[in-house]
């Protein structure tokens, strides 16, 4: 049991408690706060996996942008601090059953499989490689450009859809 294992267990506790809080909390505003907790736990996973840039992106985009956007939407759409009397629809029991069965099947398979793990440290210039891979023609320049067009379309679309007539 090394320090990495301990950190991993703490991070998974943060991420999973946050996720459970999101789906179980009766007040939507609290769900959003738990969602931030879960995002921070996942950012910790990225740091543990030596993907520092991705951890920063996670904090900036998910915690900084998406969570704030969700909180804004909650504030705009109803009284945020009031607990709903009915938060679940009538199919929550089969839905929960599906989720539990899927989790059991996934865990069974994931533990059974013998993963072919490559030993080796992450190269020190990994962020530089990531940047070059995103814009080089034998890398991922096409998905990169399509993603930027998608962001532009989503920006314009969100403004038009949410605009008051």
């Amino acid at each position, binding site marked *: 049991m090394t320090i990495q294992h301990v950190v991993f267990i703490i991070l998974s506790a943060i991420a999973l408690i946050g996720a459970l809080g999101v789906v179980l909390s009766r007040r939507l505003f609290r769900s959003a706060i738990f969602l931030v907790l879960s995002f921070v736990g996942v950012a910790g996973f990225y740091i543990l996996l030596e993907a520092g840039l991705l951890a920063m992106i996670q904090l900036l985009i998910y915690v900084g942008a998406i969570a704030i956007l*969700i909180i804004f939407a909650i504030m705009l759409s109803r009284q945020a601090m009031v607990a709903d009397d009915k938060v679940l*629809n009538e199919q929550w029991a089969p839905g929960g059953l599906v989720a539990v069965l899927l989790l059991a099947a996934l865990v069974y398979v994931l533990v059974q499989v013998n993963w072919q793990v490559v030993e080796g440290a992450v190269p020190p210039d990994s962020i530089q490689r990531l940047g070059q891979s995103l814009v080089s023609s034998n890398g991922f320049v096409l998905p990169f450009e399509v993603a930027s067009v998608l962001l532009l379309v989503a920006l314009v679309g969100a403004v038009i859809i949410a605009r008051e007539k």
Partner: protein
Amino acid sequence: MQVPLSWYLVVAAALFCIGLYGVLSRRNAIGILMGVELMLNAVNVNLVAFWRYVDPLRAAMTGQVFAIIVITVAAAEAAVGLALIIAVYRNRRTVDVTQVDELKL
């Protein structure tokens, strides 16, 4: 001694299934969107864990690039989804998805 790969995969599977339960059981459209965000996060943990453990040395950095693309699509999805929810709320005064069912036969 590193954490085994399967630990990451199991935690990501748990995150995914919690998000799935949220999507299937919530009445509020914003709650459903939060469940979708949890599921996308779980997928990203899987992608980065596979990059780190299976393919850390190749120059293309495939797993991290995929994770960045997924984050981009998630941001676009959240923006458009929340705009739709605001528009529905403006017309119907509710974000309860069981009440918004004109397209149902």
